[in-house]
């Protein structure tokens, strides 16, 4: 009886350790910390946007194309709208689109990758060919094609971005599953007669998350760029939505007379993408020490 209690305690201590280890290396990793600070900052701004500005993002005024001033920090656009307001409200759209697009591709990609890797055979052949075909298109081009079919708009852009990123996660999941399903504990579970579903969700899936999480962070960065690109081409968010790419497209005719109308939305995109790239790089270094230089 006595020994058993000790065993359980030891187990608890061991289970706690990886998380502590992770936090320790995370806080020591400069780019991971800088990246997460940038992301938290953007999330905060997106949430408290109405508090930060006295203006409405779509409110027009007579202050047309004014340069940055104390009243309008980032200036105003051709309709007299406050650019600072539009940029911070734009963070809501970009983070929203990025998040749902990435979650969508993670769920669908992981599911397909899991099936392909675990069951193999014809399922693997079919799914892997689908991945090959999706990867055969330059990403943004496929997104353009899909939005052309579905019609322009922010939701369709989000769906298109989710679809083009499916093979990335699918292949990652498939290779993890192929590796893990040969591990002793999975073979043991099989030998004990455990059902496939249980093996998949209890033993295999929880051990596949690390690369997916790293890739998810990096894909968030590309999703933000892709959403802005579609917006810029007139296929994503539609005016007067304060989407950064759409704002850049709107400000093109005034590039010479009012450069601030395109400098600030662009900087916002760069900052967001940089944040996720830094965090993604950091996570990769932490989880995969072989990559560390």
């Amino acid at each position, binding site marked *: 009886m006595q020994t058993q209690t000790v065993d359980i305690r030891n187990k608890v201590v061991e289970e706690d350790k990886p998380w502590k280890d992770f936090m320790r290396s995370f806080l020591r990793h400069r780019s991971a910390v800088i990246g997460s600070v940038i992301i938290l900052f953007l999330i905060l701004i997106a949430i408290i946007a109405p508090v930060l500005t006295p203006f409405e993002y779509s409110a027009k005024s007579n202050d047309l194309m004014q340069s940055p001033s104390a009243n309008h920090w980032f200036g105003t656009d051709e309709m007299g709208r406050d650019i600072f307001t539009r940029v911070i409200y734009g963070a809501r759209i970009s983070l929203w689109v990025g998040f749902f697009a990435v979650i969508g591709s993670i769920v669908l990609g992981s599911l397909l990758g899991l099936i392909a890797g675990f069951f193999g055979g014809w399922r693997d052949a079919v799914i892997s060919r689908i991945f090959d075909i999706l990867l055969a298109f*330059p990403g943004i*081009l496929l997104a353009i*094609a899909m939005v052309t079919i579905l*019609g322009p708009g922010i939701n369709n852009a989000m769906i298109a971005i989710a679809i083009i990123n499916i093979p990335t996660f699918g292949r990652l999941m498939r290779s993890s599953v192929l590796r893990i399903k040969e591990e002793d504990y999975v073979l043991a579970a099989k030998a004990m007669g455990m059902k496939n579903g249980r093996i998949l969700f209890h033993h295999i899936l929880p051990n596949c998350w690390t690369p997916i999480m790293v890739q998810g962070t990096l894909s968030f960065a590309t999703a933000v760029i892709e959403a802005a690109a579609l917006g810029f081409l007139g296929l994503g968010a539609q005016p007067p939505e304060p989407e950064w790419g759409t704002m850049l497209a709107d400000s093109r005719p005034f590039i010479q007379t009012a450069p601030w109308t395109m400098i600030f939305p662009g900087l916002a995109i*760069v900052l967001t993408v940089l944040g996720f790239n*830094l965090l993604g790089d950091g996570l990769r270094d932490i989880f995969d020490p072989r990559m560390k230089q």
Partner: protein
Amino acid sequence: MLAYTVRRLFMLIPVLVGMSIITFGIVHMIPGDPAQTIAGEKATPQRVEEIRKELGLDEPLYIQYGSYAKGLLQGDLGKSMTTKRPIGEEIGPFLAATAELVFAAMFIAVFFGVNLGILSSWRQNSWFDYSAMMIALIGVSIPVFWLGLMEQWLFAQTLDWLPSNGRLDPRIQMEPITYFYVIDTILYGDTEVLWDAVKHLILPAVALATVPMAIIARITRSSMLEVMRSDYIRTARAKGLSEFWVVYKHTLKNASIPVLTVIGLQLGTLLGGAVLTETIFSWPGVGRYLYTAIGERDYTVVQSGILIVATIFVIINLIVDLIYAWIDPRIQYGKK
């Protein structure tokens, strides 16, 4: 090597078929009545019916796909709905314009990316290394269309150093031979026009090159660092070989495989990025051709344009893989 090449060529077939199904779907998956959507809301019922006939939309799907695939195999990409000209003929000059832009961008990206990566790894953890990698990190994070706009604003409009639009000064008349203007002007022996063509190429090529350059620099640095720690580099140094020889000959050669893969992968990014860059710089390439077609609801052009670009992308990736296997004999592709 031959067996591997043949096998890879066979593996290309299902991918190409799948790609044609997807592009086929661009017209046929339009929600509602595709003919009505293509014709536009104000079109007369006769016009809608005409389009339906023209595209064969009134036939069963498998017959439609059959005739589409048959056409593709015979090199028939269909007719543009706005210009009524065969797309196969029309697209040539646009492809050449894109190819010229992509080659120029690739050259810039590889030249600066590889050298930046080498210098960074050679002086690891120096201020040069830190600033180069910081620049590379920002470079990866900049959207190509914003960089293009900023370049136009700064170098074309504010400083007036370089032209912001097109491939040549509109006053220059030139009968294109290859449609690669840099080559054409050399063939004509006209240095003044050559200089004009190069000046037009610089801004879009630099914008397009930035992301691949940053990625190539980072990969070069990390694979150089890995190789530099190996025994034979220590031996080369011990033999008293000059630093230049060690870095550029011994290390780079062995560090080149991941770099090569990335260069191949980046070609796809470049083809995709070209759509955006060409839109900004009014560069008459495939990207702009496609973008205009989307605006004009010219679905046949969208369909064929995307298929052509994707096919080129797949073939380039295949070539990269083959070179990869050829350079590094340790990769045993023949055996599974």
